[in-house]
């Protein structure tokens, strides 16, 4: 009796908790990492950052939008405190993402959890929540495979961009900046595809609220803050209007 359930469960667990599967699931996001990373390398060297500084930023901060804003603030010679506060606010959305994923990893050790959090990005978050919606569960080795692949490609692309500077001076011309947006669109569609039929109208209504909030907030706060505030407000509307 029990052996039947074991036989049924084991292959699923083995293939789901696989580092290699995590690497494979990261592949669709790589075009985004590579193009934005190259662009960052180019912008970084154009802003007067040395190769060592570009590498340090990429390895230690590991957040695309924050790295671009860092360059912009350096160019306007903003004070150190202003740069650090801005980077903090820009990356505060990770708190929401980390809070969303963390309950699925409580069975792993503290050290592994710190590892999952350290390499969390918009993209790995998107892939992981979509996986969670489809499979109902998330696994540590899979998450490591996803995270480490993304991290490695980001570092390589940023450094390559710093070297190749002059040849890809205008990645926008090739539409490469759209890679990330396209990825978020696809992840959103996949998310909506996995919510039940009876919930879809509720979710579409929330997206409508997101449009209104984002538009309104864009007048009063910078867009990274609009992302954070609109998400907090509309998720709350989601709880209140949920039946």
């Amino acid at each position, binding site marked *: 009796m029990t052996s039947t359930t074991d036989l049924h469960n084991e292959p699923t667990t083995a293939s789901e908790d696989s580092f290699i599967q995590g690497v494979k699931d990261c592949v669709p996001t790589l075009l985004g990492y590579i193009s934005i990373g190259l662009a960052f390398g180019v912008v970084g060297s154009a802003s007067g950052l040395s190769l060592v500084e570009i590498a340090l930023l990429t390895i230690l901060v590991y957040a695309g939008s924050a790295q671009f804003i860092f360059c912009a603030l350096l160019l306007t010679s903003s004070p150190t405190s202003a740069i650090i506060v801005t980077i903090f606010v820009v990356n505060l959305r990770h708190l929401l993402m980390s809070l969303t994923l963390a309950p699925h990893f409580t069975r792993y050790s503290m050290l592994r959890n710190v590892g999952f959090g350290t390499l969390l990005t918009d993209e790995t978050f998107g892939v992981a929540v979509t996986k969670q919606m489809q499979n109902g569960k998330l696994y540590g080795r899979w998450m490591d495979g996803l995270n480490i692949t993304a991290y490695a490609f980001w570092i390589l692309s940023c450094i390559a961009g710093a070297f190749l500077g002059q040849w890809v001076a205008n990645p926008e011309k090739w539409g490469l900046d759209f890679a990330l947006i396209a990825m978020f669109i*696809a992840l959103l569609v996949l998310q909506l595809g996995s919510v039940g039929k009876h919930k879809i109208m509720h979710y579409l209504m929330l997206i409508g609220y*997101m449009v209104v909030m984002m538009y309104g907030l*864009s007048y009063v706060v910078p867009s990274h803050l609009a992302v954070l505030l609109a998400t907090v407000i509309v998720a709350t509307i989601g709880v209140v209007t949920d039946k």
Partner: protein
Amino acid sequence: MTTTASMVWLIIGCALVTWLPRIIPFMFVRSVKLPDVVLKWLSFIPVCILSALVIENLLDTESKNFVTLDWPVFITFVPTLIIALVTKSLSITVVAGVIIMASVRFFM
């Protein structure tokens, strides 16, 4: 030119304020059982944040004194959304989106 001590400290400062929001929930959720209402709230975060990241790019907040659509991005967004809905594929959507964006920029 390589780097200066003050630049290294600045980068370390930025790294710390980026790292803490990423790891604190992972450290603290292990020992606390989140109430159902918080879990429910968190269940809406993925869709909200993914829409926010898309909408952020569709809006042009800089070139005029009122917020408008970023037309080239919006024109690319519509077919890309359709491709995502039809194929349900991350890779196809990304490659198609980049090609459409490049063509839109070429013709506009």
